[in-house]
Each structure stands twice: as C-alpha cells, then as structure tokens.
C-alpha cells in the first residue's frame, strides 16, 4: 500500500501523566511518525503529576493551557443565576478555551491537505470542536467499553461531542455495534496495539501466578485474593504475586492477612519491567470488574503466559478466546476463578497449549497490523 504522508494531530486531555491512555498515545504517535507521517501530540492541560516520557521525542508535542482551566459550569437554579463569581469564572473559562481553540485552529490551518485529527478522549473533543477543522478529518475514539460509558456520564458526552466526527473508533466490534444501536452511525473499530516486542518468552515452569495493574477497586484484586484462598490451601507450593500500587493497597494487604494468605501472596509494588515480571510467570490472572481493552492481557499473551480473566467486557473477549488461548470466567464468580486457576496450575500441557496459541493469536494486535488498519481508516475518511 502506498502511503500518503500526512500531518496527524493527536489531541488528548493530557499527554504527560503515567496512564494507559498516555502510553497508548505516545506509542501510537511514535508508530505513525516512524511510518512517515508528521505527528503532533497535543495535550489540552498539564496533569497534576508529570511522568517522564523522554526527551527528544521523534514527534512534536504541545500543551494548550499553561494553567488548568476551571471546570465547566452552568446555572441550574435561580440562586445560581445570581452567582456573579461563578458567572465571571465561567466567562473566563470560556475565553481561555476560546484562546486554546484558536491555537489549535492555527495549527490545523498550517497542515498539508489530507491531514487527520485524532481525539482519543471525549473531554478533549470540546476544544477540537471549538477549533476550525474545515478541510481536515476528525477521528474520535472511546477507549472504554460501551457498558462502562453507559454507566457513567461519559455516554451522554460521547453522544454530544462525537456524533458528528467523521469516524468514531471503538475498541471492539461488540462495542461499535452497541453504539450503533444507541444511534451513533459513524462508528468503526480499531484495537489497541501491543506495546511490547519481546525477544524471549516465559517457560511457564515456575510455580507463580502474576497479576499486574493499578491496585484499585475496579481491578478486582479483592476477588483474586478470595479466589486464591482455596488454591493456596490445595497448592501451597504456588505463589501469587501482585504488581502495582494504588488506593486499595492497604485494604488489600489487610484482606490478604484476614484470609490467611500472608505466605503465598506477595505485593511486589510497581514495576517498570513488565516483560521481566511476566517472563517469570506461568499463569496470568486478570480479575477486573470493568475493562476497556486491557493491554496487560495482550502483554501476558505476547510473553506466552496463559490468562484467567473475568469476562467483564468485550475487550477481554476480543483478546482472550476461551479454551483457545486462555480461560474466561463468568463475571464475579470467584469459585469458577479458583477452578480455572487450578486447572492451569495442575495441567502443564494445557498451560503450554494455551500459551503457545496466545503467542500466535496476539500478532493480530502487532503494531504493523494496527498501523495497516490506521491507513485504511485514513483512506476511508477521505473517500
């Protein structure tokens, strides 16, 4: 496929935080830049805590607001209408958004024909919508499942801000169809790319189950601990290692000790070496209550480690095929989670079969494959 070199803007809420979306944005920007496009990665604001994504990035980066603008406000009651301070603040906010949008407009106007604006988060879309995008094509994205959006205020905002973009990309066909049924007609599908390219994979021999991610309630580590109780009793030779930190850490540690899991369960803290962490593991546990398109599942697969995951979102089903390259468990059913873990622990051959199949299946999400899909979508929006 001959590629037209394009000017590509990726506009995120912020581009400096340590988070899944930011990792995705930098990875994608690098990928597109390396394939010949001129990428400009733009954050609307600076985050509270800044992560170092490196100097001398191969693509351009900017941040629109030097200072975080106040949150949007609208009068709801009569008393609100008389609130002079709030009204003044809202006017200032609007003016500063206007200014930032004007900066975007200037950048967009300077772009070559065939330019693309990618907006991976709905909050940032407010700025892009306020800018002049004529002559360009705008691609919106939602990085979470339809259900997760529907359960929060984001569904309303997605409907409002993304209904008119040229294409709205969802992570899975299932989510895209759900949005179609909901009335959005511009939806299409793009999976997240696999961020690692490992040289060596896991041998799957060490008696170790690994889980990796933020220690937050939605990641469901409390459920994993509960499921582990019976495993620990029956297979005391196996250990469970949890990587990550987060707001639930203290509670989880306490829970582990109430459950009598002090010996076999390790809290290993945050790690920068994901590949190393997974290379030692024989089984990967993904007990989340809610997910978008979990990168850690792809990473485990790319390291040859079979997963046990709660079937909590289309993204999980898209990555893990039950009994083919991993095991899926009905949401919240910790007893079945135990059964699945034990199956992989006791059955070496099963572990190997699922793990090897995973290595093959994960190539669907290899950067080259995802890049090819981007080119296809760029082509579509200019047809």
């Amino acid at each position, binding site marked *: 496929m001959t590629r037209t070199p394009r000017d590509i803007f990726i506009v995120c809420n912020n581009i400096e935080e340590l988070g899944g979306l930011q990792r995705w944005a930098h990875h994608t920007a690098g990928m597109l830049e390396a394939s010949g496009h001129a990428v400009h990665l733009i954050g609307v604001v600076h985050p509270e805590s800044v992560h170092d994504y490196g100097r001398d990035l191969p693509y351009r980066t900017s941040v629109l607001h030097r200072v975080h603008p106040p949150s949007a406000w609208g009068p709801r009651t009569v008393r609100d209408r008389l609130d002079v301070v709030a009204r003044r603040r809202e006017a200032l906010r609007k003016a500063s958004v206007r200014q930032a949008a004007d900066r975007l407009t200037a950048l967009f106007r300077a772009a070559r024909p065939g330019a693309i604006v990618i907006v991976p988060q709905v909050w940032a879309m407010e700025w892009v919508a306020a800018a002049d995008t004529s002559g360009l094509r705008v691609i919106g994205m939602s990085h979470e499942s339809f259900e997760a959006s529907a*359960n929060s205020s984001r569904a309303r905002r997605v409907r409002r801000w993304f209904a008119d973009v040229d294409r709205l990309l969802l992570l899975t066909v*299932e989510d895209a*169809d759900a949005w*179609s049924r909901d009335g959005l007609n*511009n939806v299409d599908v793009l999976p997240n790319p696999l961020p690692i390219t490992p040289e060596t994979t896991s041998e799957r021999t060490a008696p170790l189950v690994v889980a990796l991610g933020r220690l937050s*309630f939605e990641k469901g580590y409390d459920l994993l601990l509960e499921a582990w109780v019976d495993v620990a009793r029956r297979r005391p030779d196996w250990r469970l290692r949890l990587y990550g930190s987060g707001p639930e850490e203290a509670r989880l540690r306490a829970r582990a000790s109430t459950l009598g899991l002090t010996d076999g369960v390790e809290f290993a803290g945050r790690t920068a070496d994901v590949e190393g962490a997974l290379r030692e593991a024989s089984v990967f546990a993904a007990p989340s*209550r809610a997910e978008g398109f979990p990168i850690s599942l792809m990473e485990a697969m790319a390291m040859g480690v079979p997963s046990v995951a709660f079937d909590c979102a289309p993204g999980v089903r898209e990555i893990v095929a039950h009994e083919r390259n991993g095991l899926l468990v009905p949401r919240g*059913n910790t007893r079945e989670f135990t059964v699945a873990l034990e199956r992989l622990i006791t059955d070496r051959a099963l572990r190997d079969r699922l793990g090897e199949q995973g290595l093959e299946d994960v190539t669907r999400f290899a950067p080259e494959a995802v890049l090819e899909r981007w080119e296809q979508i760029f082509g579509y929006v200019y047809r």
Partner: protein
Amino acid sequence: MSVSRAPDVSVIVIVYNDATRLPRAVDSVLRQTLDNLEILIVDDASTDDSFAVAERFAAEHPGKVRAIRLEHNSGGCSRPRNEGIDRALGTFVMFLDSDDTLDRHACKNMLVAAEETGADLISGLCVRLHEGRNGKITPWYPELYAERAVLESASERPELLYDTLSTNKCYRRTFLNDHELRFPEGLHYEDLLFSARAYLGANRITLIPNTVYQWRVVKDAKVRSISNRRGELRNFTDRLAIHRRIDEELQTEELRSLKLLKDVKFLQHDLVLYLWGLPFQTEEFRREFIPLAQEYLATLDPRAFREAKHIPALAAYLVLRDDWPNLLTAIDLVLNRSKVAAPLHRQDGRVYWCAEHLDDELGRAILDVTDLVTWAKPLDQVWLGNDLVHYSSTGGSVRLAGLIVNPLDRIEPTARLSARLEFRSRRKKLAMTAVHVPVDSIRHTPEGLAWETTVDLTRTLHPVGVLDPVWDVWMDLTVDGVVSTSRLFATSLPEDARSIPIRPRLGKAVGDHVLPFITDKGHLSFTVTHEGTIARKGRELVLRTADSAFGHKLVSTARKQITRTGARKREAFRLARTALAKLPVRKGLVVFESHLGLQYSDNPRYIHEELRRSGARFEAVWVYAESRAGFPKDATLVKRGSWAHYKALAQAEFWIDNQGVLGDAVKNPGTTYIQTWHGSALKRMGFDMPSVKQSDAAAQARLQKGVDRFDYFVVRSEHDVETLMAAYRLRAEPLRTGYPRNDALADADAPTADVEALRAELGLVGDPRRIVLYAPTFRPREEDEEFEMPFDLERWVRELGEEFVLLVRTHYLDAVDLPPSLAKDVRDASATHDVTPLLRLADVLITDYSSLMFDYALLDRPMVFYTYDYEAYTRQSRGAYFELADRAPGPLAADQDALFAAVRESGAEHGHYADLRRAFVKSYGEYDRGTAARQIVERFFPTGGAQ
C-alpha cells in the same frame, strides 16, 4: 488518487410530482460523509417542477448530480429505478425516494462494509420517522440489524425475507448487471420481488447495525374512501402476482426451506394486511377477494399453516374454506388477540374454533384452539365477544342491542345476569369521568346472551371538551356476581346513523355533538364534533391559535415544562426529604411490607396477625405495589413509592419487612427496622453473589447502605447467621425466634381454617387424590423469555393424574400459563399470596433450590428435588452454601423419568428420608418452634407497658 476515478456509490433518487420534498432528499445525499459519489435524479415525467429542481441541482453540482427525465410517466417506482441502474457509473448502487432521506454516514458505512467483506449486497437499518408526531422513530425489523453479520447466503438467516425494502440496501453494480436484476415494471410491490431476488442471488450479504435510511411517514389520511378500497383489490392482485414470481425463483430443491418461510410470512404478514380491513368492506369486495386469496393459498406448502403463528393461520384456513361467518370471528381474534370471539365447539376432549371442517386433518390441527383461547379462565379474566346487532337513534337517545358469546355454554341458563354500559373517555387520566348506564334487558338464548337497551346520551354524556375527543363504549356483564368486561363489535353502522347533541362541560364552543363510529378494531365509539355555529367558530379559534406565533410559543413552553418536570421532581423530592426527616415518630405506627409490596404474606403478615390477637395498641399500614386486592381491610394501604408511603415510613415506629424497604426512604432515629427476611439460604446471597461481587464500588456501597438500616434480623438457625447475616455484612441484632410464618408448620395443633378455605378455593374439597405442590425457584432469563414448565404436563396427567393432583406455584417474579385442557389435574396456585397454607395443604413437595425446602421440612412430609440443571445452577450461576446432593431430605431427580418415579414412590417412602428430614430441620430450623410471632410481639409491643 486520480480525479477522474469512478464514483464509489451511485445514489438513484426517483421523483414523481414531489418538487417540494425533492431538495431535502438530494441534500441528504450531498451532505454525506462520503464525497466520492454521484446522484442520479430520475424524474418519472412529473407534471410539476420536479425536473426543474433536478436540473438546478445538476447545474450546481456538475459531475456529481445528473438529472434524467423519462418521456412517459410509468406510474411506479420500477421504471425510474431501472433507468437509474442502467445509467449509473458507481461501483455500488443505492436507491432513495424523493420523500425520504439518507443518514449522513449511510454511504460511507455501506462502502466500508462492502469493501471489508467483499459482499454483493449490504443491508442496514431503516427507521420510520413519523412526521409531526414529535419526531417519533420506529425502527424497521431492528432484530435483523442488532449486530453486524456476514452471510454467505440468505438461507443462513431466512428471516431476512421479512425485510422486503430495496432502499435500505447497497448493491454492487456488477452484481445487478451480471444477474440482470431489475425492478418488475407494471406491478405494485416491486420491492418484494427485487429484494427476494437480490437476497437469493447475492454472493455474500453483509448486515450492519447502522441506521442508513430514513423513511418519512406522513400521517395516514383518516378514513379511506370507497374508491381507494377498490384500489386495494388491485393492490392485492399485484401482491399475489409478485409472490407467484418469487415462488418461481424458489422452486429449486435447496431453496425449499426459504419457500416454506416465505409462505409462512405470507400467512402472517401479507394476508393479514388485507384481513384486518375485510370485515369493514362491502360484501361485493369480499366476493371478489376471497376467491383470489383462496386460489393463492391453495398453492402454499401445507406445512406453512402449521408453522405460522396460530391466529393468522386460523384466519387463513377459514379463507381457504371460504367460511365467512367463522372467518369474521377469527378476524375479530386477529384484531383483538385475547378476545373469545366465537362460541367454540368441544369434541373428544379438545376445543375447536367451530364445529365445521373437523373432518379435514389440517382443519382439525388449525382449528384446535384448546391452548390458544382463554376459554377456561374465570369469567372476570375473559374478554367475551359481544356483537352489536342493532343501532339506531332518535334525537338524544340511542337504541342498542347485541349478543354476547357464551363459549361452550359455560354460562348456565339459570345464572343471574345483569349488565351495564360504560361510556369512557379514551384518555386514561380522565377515566374518572366515565358514566354508567344499566342495560334494560339481558337474557340467555341458545345463540348467546341477548341484550338490548336505550340510552339518553344527551343527558348522560358530558365530555369535558378539547381534552377528550373520543369516547369508547364498554359493557360490564355480571354473571352470578362475577363481572366480565367486553366491547361492542360491529363491522358497520347503519347508513343513517347520525350525530347526537350533547353538552360539554367547557361549553358549546368546544363541541356540540357526538358522532358514532367503528374503530379500526371493530368497536363502537363516539367522537365529539362541531356542528352548530358556536362550536364551529370555537374550533376554528382553537386551530388558528395553535398555528399562530403565539400558539407555537404556547406549545413549546408546554413541552419545556414537561421535559423539565424530571429535574423539578428531583428537586421537590430533595426538599421533601428534609421535611420528612423532621417529622416526629408516631408511637405504635407499623409499616408492613412483603416482597416489595406484591403480597400480603410471609413473616410480616403473621406478625401483624399476632399483633391483632395480642390486643396491643398499634396502627397498621400495608404497602402494596400493584393491586390492593388481598390486603387486609383493617390496615391503611399505601402504594409503594407514593408520597403517602414515604410519609408513613418517616413517621413509623416500626418497619416490618421481608426484603427491602425503598432505598431512598427517610428513616428517622425513632424508627426500628425489623427485617424478617423470607427464607434460609442454599444459594449464595448478598456480597457472596457473583453479580454483586462484580458490581462497581458505588453499587456495593448502595447495597450496604440499604442493609445497614436493619436493626433486627429474624433467623431460623445459626445457619442463617453464618450465611445470610455474614453475606450482607449485617450489623443488626439477630432475633433467634424462628419464622412467624412457620409457626403453623412447627405446631401440629395449629388451627386449619385457612387450609380448608384454600382447599375450597382451589376446588379440591372431597378430592381423594394426594396433593403435590410444585414450587420451583426463580431462574434468570432473557427479557422476552417466559417461564416454562420444565416437565411435560400432559405426560404427568396421563401417568399420575389419577393418583395425584398437581398445584403449580411459580416464584413471585414468574407467571405460568397452564393449558386449560388440563385444568382438572393441574392447577395454578401462584395467585395465593400466602404460601404457608399451601405448604400445609400439600402432601408432597417438589422443589429444586427454593428456600421453601427449609420450611416444608418442618411438616415431615415427603419431598422431591427436581434438579435437572444441578451443575449449571449450583456452580455456574450462583454457587451454594452447601452441597444439596449430600443433605437433601428427599431424592434428587435429574430428569422427568426420575421425577415421576420419585413422586410415584413418595407414598411408600422408607425411614431413611424421615431421618434426613429431622437432621435437616435441626441444622436449618432449630429455632422454629411455633412461637416466633408471639416472641416478637411480646418483645417489641409489651401490652399495658409504658405508653
């Protein structure tokens, strides 16, 4: 990317005398997110400006829009569309009618789907936009388009044949040309044939869930004239011609299944479209219609009659037999699904629609309505056919006479009969303005119940005016004290039926007459009309105002008011809560609730009864959810969620409930919440349930907050403490009293009056057979699924009917439809609020995982566990607190054979199960000693104490 490349899509817009709407259609294509397309406007020789409009578009968009004009009008859609296909240059072709529009992304979605799947045919969702009805939208066969799908052939999804539109689709142009696929000219319903051929010929079909086509529906002209109805016959012959041509295409062996499906569709859909109106046509029309239909029906696969839905098949069969009297009642059934419109016929233990045609095998199968029509239900749940046989009026008074169907002569000649007419505004909120007039005479005749009456409408009917333009006529028939409601069915009114003067409450300006008419469903109604000068002027004024700037403002303000009421309500509720929190608690006020207000039953009921006996000073409030029926008369009844309910809760000294009081109720500090619960647990509950475990933090916090309101929790054993109380993380104090509802089960000397009353109610007095109660637990199902009996009832009756009578009690969230033909041996006991007398009545209990097992064990009678889905239920869905198979005090039956055997042997069971039962009671019901209600009342309502 060269400039001269072929367009991706050609959109063919056809127009005939529609110059005003054409621009809207064309604009919807020009605004597409797909740029690389062409528009061909094909004008079918319009006599208005349509072609000029088309040419203007062509001039404004050279190279993109072409205007084509047919020399002669073709009178249909086929010729212009075919012309468009011939002239198109795009890789793909789509069609658009001048009165409709395309969704902005339609062409791009079609193109992307076509390119990614390589399909010849892509089909997306069509929505009907009802103009002028606040933008109401109804999707067309949405179930076909719920998710994207790629089909190699139409036979993978034969239901596609139902979507016969050609406009919500995108066709590869080479596919149309290679198959010489064109619209048939000179016939209506060209889409039917074209789509069927496209489905059959396409080398891959892709379905997308996106809305592509907006079918703009203008409200139907009110009453169609006779000449239009004549036209309908033409329509029908055209439709038959199209179907015959589709049939030709479907003749090959491999398309047999499609042919059958198409025949089924003809019965259910195509034919029904004409049958609806048939009773209201002239006899002449009917004489022409029936032979036409008959002739085509004779060519259908006979299996189609058996596979089609029963009601359309019934009507079609009677068309085939040219039996007008029975067909008329069958059409009444088509129009009014739940009506018993025919007298029916009983033969060999089955019930038939009529006595004729039973010598024919197909006739016997189709006319057998034993399980279709509700002939066996109590009269108050039956809608009887009621033919209006006479209508006349003089001045303000109307004379009516009719005949009510007496199905299977179930209403005895000796029955006491009376009837009254009800005139009721169709607007539900004005139901209270209904007026009733007694019927002068009603008597039993061999043909049915004949009635007649005269009503002075001018004196009785007083509409408000404006708000209530339509008044329906109902009849309440009373048979030995049981009331059965019906409507007056007629196919036409006498030519000379004229309007009747009335006096609306708002005065003559809003109307001065009512005019009788027959509704689309064949029922007599009246509509308010304006005949005098004042009324006509008044009406003009109302209409003019509505159309003026002021009127528009008025309407938009009203609409805003309505949309804002949600927010207003929430705000009002917030304020009200603050007020409720300040209310003082009233001593002795008890709010009772059982199963979310659905029943007067269970522990709260027995505590209430004990309170009555105790002589304590108290004031009872019962919460009901749907109906007040069955609730006690000595209590104040409040509807669940009403203001009165919230207020009672805020003022109550006690809440006594078995499940969960409204989550947002105000519980004041002086209120004590006694949670009695409704059964011990086998299945995992509360935070032990997977569905709760997987829910987010906010949902879990809500649940915890709800159960943290409990102050006391009634338990039957330490098992309850270890399972239920732990599972809900309760801080409440356990009341180790046992269940009040089980007092009568634990106490062999308990009075049996309620058991005997129930025996009589179920018609079991003097029945020597042993009583088996089947009480399964609730199983989660898809939304449109209904509860189904998991064993064959007919086999049950055959094999066990002589020895046992079966009572079925579903979970309170379920409902069961039992075949009326088995009524002697199988009865529905679901409507009984209170389960305790039912348990006491039963000699044997069949259950599965229901908590009733814990209660019934107290009676020390045989139990059978019908656990056909044991693995799936206990492991996959919920999980259990103990292994039922190890502890069940009765045999587990995994299938029907085992179940029937176990029931048969239940009479002669050996001591083994009796021992298990006692152990079971000891483990799970140790506190059930027959004194629970008394203990609770004595503790919380000390009589003569400080008050």
